[in-house]
């Protein structure tokens, strides 16, 4: 709330011309209208659709590769460091390649989203599987579980807290990757709307979309991921409740 007041105050000082620094009231009005007439809401839906597609692929592939790496020492030693270095590359950097490989359009952007989340997902899964309390594994094999059975019934469930944290981070990374890719790429998502706003010199649109992006991220994180994470951490006894 105080940020909004400060914002309004700066606007009143008229340091910048009106179109470059809109007032919060203008922004909220544009936000409201855009949500009602569909300019923003449809863009949001488009973005969310891409995000979900990319995210699901990133999570499924990430967990699978993570398990493979954790269960195979040579693979971990060779690909493990490679993945760490890939993670430090911002995923938009892949966009030029993706545009070449997948032609302009949907798959390229989704590819960037997948790349945005997958490394983190792999790393979380690998460390989750590796950090299972040895006693639980010993206990499982003591009770007669062996091999794949032991893995699916003991090791994998025991590493779920790590995997959930990984999923939460991956969501944030995917969301950022999507925005970056949309700004540079094509389509009907939020990022493109933001670029139109810039091209038209309409800072109201730009700010509205920034707000949408921030709130979408905040809401999903708080309402979905934090709750699940908290529940799982408590159940697994990792919180002092």
């Amino acid at each position: 709330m105080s940020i909004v007041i400060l914002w309004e105050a700066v606007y009143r000082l008229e340091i910048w011309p009106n179109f470059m620094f809109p007032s919060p009231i203008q922004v909220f009005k544009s936000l409201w209208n855009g949500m009602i007439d569909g300019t923003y809401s449809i863009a949001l839906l488009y973005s969310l659709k891409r995000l979900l597609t990319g995210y699901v692929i990133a999570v499924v592939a990430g967990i699978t590769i993570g398990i493979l790496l954790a269960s195979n020492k040579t693979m971990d030693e060779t690909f493990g460091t490679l993945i760490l270095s890939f993670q430090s590359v911002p995923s938009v950097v892949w966009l030029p390649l993706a545009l070449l490989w997948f032609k302009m359009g949907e798959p390229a952007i989704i590819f960037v989203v997948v790349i945005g989340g997958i490394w983190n997902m792999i790393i979380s899964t690998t460390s989750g599987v590796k950090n299972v309390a040895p006693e639980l594994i010993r206990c499982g094999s003591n009770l007669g579980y062996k091999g794949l059975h032991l893995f699916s019934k003991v090791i994998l469930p025991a590493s779920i807290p790590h995997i959930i944290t990984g999923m939460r981070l991956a969501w944030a990374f995917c969301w950022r990757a999507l925005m970056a890719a949309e700004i540079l790429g094509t389509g009907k998502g939020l990022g493109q709307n933001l670029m139109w706003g810039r091209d038209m010199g309409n800072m109201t649109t730009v700010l509205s979309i920034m707000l949408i992006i921030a709130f979408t991220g905040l809401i999903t994180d708080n309402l979905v991921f934090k709750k699940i994470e908290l529940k799982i951490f408590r159940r697994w006894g990792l919180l002092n409740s």
Partner: protein
Amino acid sequence: MITLKDLNKRFGEIEVFKKVNLSIKEGEFISLLGPSGCGKSTLINIISGLDKADGGNVIIDNEEIHGTNVDRIMVFQNAALFPWMNVYQNVAFGLKNICKDSKEIKRKVDQVLRKVHLSKFKTHYPHELSGGMKQRVSIARSLVMDPKVLLMDEPFSALDEQTRMLLHHELQQIWMETGKTIIFVTHNIREAVKLSDRVIVMGIRPGGIIEDIKIDMHHPRKNTDPNLFSQEEKVYKVLKGEIEKVVREEMGNEYKFEKDPIPFEHSNTMGGGI
């Protein structure tokens, strides 16, 4: 009948124990007692099949063991319950592997939960239980498998004294009812003497069994039984030397376990300096 034959174990340079020979009758309750580092936990892990010996073998009913098997079930020091399963699921976990009939599983689990007084807590998760309850679940999870041998690796060492006394009593009851062979690792002399038929005292450097003490008293034993104290004294005498060895290694050779019976203080010479 369990026979340990010439067991050797080393971790790299350090020899944990060598030439361990022991035979345990069916239905016997034996304790492995010794200072930390004497390899008592290693020994029980080898019997369970979780660890491998470097030499010698473990023979149960004329068959040499290879790896883990559901006829030898371990109760771990900190219970090692699966946090994502409730009490019922934890207890049923191992059973599902050897028994496919879900009615039979339910009957057995309910029965064993009654035995450890946890029927009310069936749907609780481990993080909602106290330390003593967790260990009860762990014991139930092992008992329900109906193993030939129950292996217990310092199961009560993390519990407070009251809970421990209660669980001692319950374990004695369970043992008398089921007649299972129990191998119990502990560093608590009282615990060992109170619960077991035989106390195997293990030494350190060189590691191995130094004494096999029979505790000839009927069960269940009460804490206040004076016989218990004299037996404790007997075990303590054997163990004292070993404890001293450990402390000397850590603190230096001047360390003496038992000082002169009259404390000598320069300020307290009864006027000798006058």
